C-alpha cells in the first residue's frame, strides 16, 4: 500500500513569491493535515482538511491557505513568501473525523526562501 506522498521534495523560492505544495493521502484516508517544521523546532499545526472542507487551522497568517480536492489530495499555498517560511512542510493523512486517529506522515517538502 502506497504511503503519503508529497511533491516537490525541495522547493526554492524568493521573497514575495508564491509556493504550492502538494500531498496525496493514503488510499481510503479522507483527512489531510499540514504541519510546518522550522529548523530545530517541533511541528506546528497549519491546517486540517476532511471531506473537502477546512476543519481547523493553526495560528498562521491568512497567506497560508490550502484546499482539498474530491480525490482527497491537498494543496498548501503560501503567498508573499517570507524568509522565515523556510522550513520542512509535512503532510499527514488519517482515516477521517473521529477519535483516536493515527496520522501517517509523508516525507515532506523542504522549502527554502531566499
Amino acid at each position, binding site marked *: 500500500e502506497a504511503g503519503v506522498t508529497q511533491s516537490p521534495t525541495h522547493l526554492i523560492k524568493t521573497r514575495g513569491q508564491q509556493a504550492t505544495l502538494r500531498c496525496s493521502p493514503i488510499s481510503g484516508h479522507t483527512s489531510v493535515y499540514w504541519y510546518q517544521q522550522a529548523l530545530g523546532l*517541533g511541528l506546528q499545526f497549519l491546517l486540517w482538511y476532511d471531506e473537502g472542507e477546512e476543519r481547523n487551522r493553526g495560528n498562521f497568517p491568512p497567506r497560508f491557505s490550502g484546499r482539498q480536492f474530491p480525490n482527497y489530495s491537498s494543496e498548501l499555498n503560501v503567498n508573499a513568501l517570507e524568509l522565515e517560511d523556510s522550513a520542512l512542510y509535512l503532510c499527514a493523512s488519517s482515516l477521517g473525523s473521529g477519535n483516536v486517529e493515527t496520522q501517517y506522515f509523508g516525507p*515532506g517538502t523542504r522549502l527554502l526562501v531566499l
Partner: protein
Amino acid sequence: SQQGEEDPQALSIQEGENATMNCSYKTSINNLQWYRQNSGRGLVHLILIRSNEREKHSGRLRVTLDTSKKSSSLLITASRAADTASYFCATETWNTGNQFYFGTGTSLTVIP
C-alpha cells in the same frame, strides 16, 4: 502554544543501554502518541496510549501515561544505532477533533 514538551532535548547513550524520554502537556487529552523522525524526514508512528490507559508495550518500547501529572514517558530498551532519531509526543485534546499538538522533540543518539 505547543501542548507537548519533551525532556531532555537531547540524549546520547551507548548501544545496548536504555533510553528514557519524557513528555509533559498542559490540558486534558484524548490520547497521546509517540512518533519518530529520522534526519528531518517524515514522522513514523510508534505507539498510542489512550487517556484511560497507564502503560503500553510494543516490542522494545514501553510508554507510560500519568494523567494526574499530565506527563508521559517513552522507554526504549536495549537501544540500537538505528534508534538514532528525534522522538516527538503528540497529544489529541478534547474538542479539537483530530488536531494533534506536537512537542519540540528529543534528539536521541545511540553510539555503536
